[in-house]
């Protein structure tokens, strides 16, 4: 479903991703770990289509289509979802109205009529339950005055609403207390299915206690330097990243 080949990406004249390669098949959960500044968030932003990031060379195909040729909104309508590390506050726009616009944008893309109000409310209610949020959240301005945990739950709620096929979670676990972490992880686990793939970016192994990955990759110096199963995450938790840095000192 997602195939990244020799991807080189820079921002403001500085190259961040260097010959990055990754294959994700339908239904797989991949975790990407690694120390700060190795390009994890750059990868997520690039895949989501943030224009500040310049793709120098390389290919990304998503369900057989050239992802890099699509605008950010087209990618989302095609089924890519980025759960933001820092969800943006938008005063004056309620989450309900935002989701209505987003759901209907996707439906239009699929050649469907806008969802009727009753069905939309029913869908919202069902998806809110996944992340243990109450209806009152959705009438408030997007993320405005939300706690860190509420913002991240709102991301997973939106993900559930839009039913993407590729979910990019950019440090969704950072700043979460243990209860919020459990809720977010539960939400993700309920969204898992054979067609939906996840790319989970995290610093810590703790989220992976709840969401069990099929593959764990370690990023360093703008590329994946080690891949393994979930046991790799445990090793990193125990030993830190120093051994990775030593093995790959030539990359920096």
């Amino acid at each position, binding site marked *: 479903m997602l195939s990244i080949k020799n991807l080189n990406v820079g921002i403001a004249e500085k190259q961040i991703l260097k010959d990055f390669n990754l294959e994700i098949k339908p239904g797989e959960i991949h975790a990407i770990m690694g120390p700060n500044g190795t390009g994890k968030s750059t990868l997520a932003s690039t895949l*989501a*289509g*943030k*224009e500040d990031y310049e793709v120098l060379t390389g290919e990304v195909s998503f369900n057989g289509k050239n992802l890099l040729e699509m*605008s*950010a*909104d087209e990618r*989302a*309508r095609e089924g890519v*979802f*980025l759960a*933001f590390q820092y*969800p*943006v506050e*938008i*005063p*004056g*726009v309620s989450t*309900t*109205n*935002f*989701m*209505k*616009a*987003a759901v209907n*944008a*996707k439906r239009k*893309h699929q050649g469907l009529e806008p969802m009727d109000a009753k069905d939309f409310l029913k869908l919202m209610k069902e998806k809110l339950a996944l992340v243990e949020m109450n209806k009152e959240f959705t009438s408030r*301005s*997007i993320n405005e005055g939300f706690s860190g945990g509420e913002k991240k739950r709102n991301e997973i709620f*939106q993900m559930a609403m*839009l039913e993407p096929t590729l979910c990019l979670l950019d440090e969704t676990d950072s700043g979460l207390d243990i209860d919020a972490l459990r809720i977010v992880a539960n939400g993700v686990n309920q969204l898992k299915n054979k067609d939906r793939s996840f790319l989970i970016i995290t610093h810590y192994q703790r989220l992976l206690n709840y969401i069990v990955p099929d593959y764990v990759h370690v990023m360093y110096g703008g590329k994946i330097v080690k891949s393994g199963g979930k046991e790799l995450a445990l090793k990193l938790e125990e030993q830190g990243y120093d051994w990775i840095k030593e093995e790959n000192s030539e990359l920096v």
Partner: protein
Amino acid sequence: MSFAENISKQFAEVSNTNVVELRKNAFTAFEKLGIPSSRHEEWKYTNIKTKLNEQLSLTPADSQVNTTVKNYIASLPPYAFRIIFLNGIFHPELSIVPDTKGLTICSLKEAFSSHTSLVERYFGKLINYNEEHFAALNTAFVNDGAFIHVQKNVAINEPIYIQYFFTASDVNAFTQTRSLAIVEEGASIQIAEDFRNASNINVQYNHVSEVFVGKNASIDIVKLQLEVSNSIGIHTLESQVERDGKFSASTITFSSPNTGTGNALIRNNATARLIGENAHADLNGLYFGKENAHIDNHILVDHVAPNCTSNQLYKGVLNDESTGVFNGKIFVRQDAQKTNAFQSSKALLLSNDASINSKPQLEIFADDVKCSHGAAVGQLDENALFYQRARGITKEEATQILTYAFAHEVIDHVHSKPIRQFLCDKLKDELKVNF
């Protein structure tokens, strides 16, 4: 005929027998002032002199009801009170004024003869005609207008909708329109004034609203300048607020594309004078500029008495080559201790050719006051745009949604629910936001 000769000839022809002394004084003052040029500090960014036609015709033009007028009236929500003017002339057959205890609504012409003592006490009393060019001209020449009086402790909960249509067929017509609202102690009303070009030519008009807010009384006034195109409109809103009184004014301007070589030029002068303790004024505005539209808001809040509060919130969205002017002044007199006065002006420039001149002014002569002002000019937040696009919303729609959110704050302050709803729908329509 020179400008001065033309004006003075026309004044000699004005056959009003009412408030003659005041009109004469106003006329003499206008003769001295003339039409301001851009050398005048208050008209620096709005070169009105070059925009108005040379040979102004100040006598009321014919006022035939055309289909534009009919269709617009038919499209209005069913307001309980509706007063309709064409070229400044009252049309009772189009108006709806149900008898209501404690409320008088009539034409200014009728008030001149049947409410003489109120007219003498209030008409023109807030106009500084030695300095205000257009208010002086209006006071001298105005022929008719809306008169509203609310008796002590009477609360009118339905909005009073005043519609000023301009249908003149003479391009030189400079139509003078006017509203006078007097709300006695403890009474309250909501007023909407709607201005609309219903002709197929360029129109010019000069409107004055005088508003008296009694002790513990309240007035919420909304000025609607919607679909402004092929128009030059000059508006003066003068208000005076007594002890514990509340005044709120929202001026909403949407420009529309012009046909041919038209101008869309709007100048709003809005003044609130707080003359009794604990009085409060809100002066808010929202403006959308398109093409070559020019929208100028000049605001003055005059804190005369102590312990008063005021807020100014102005927001603008400028597209194409449109220009905006914001000039907001807070004046705190020596006796006005414990004043709380705030001002905020924000403008979004959505095109490289749009511009705004923003000038906040504070003049404070008391020592125990809280005043603040902020003026911001900018573009939409890129992060907020990307966040929406990452959810599948197109860049265009995301821009509209953010602009809607930006503008909606001003409409939120409109007290009257039906007017607020009307404006909310108008805003959604304008921005093609459909949620």
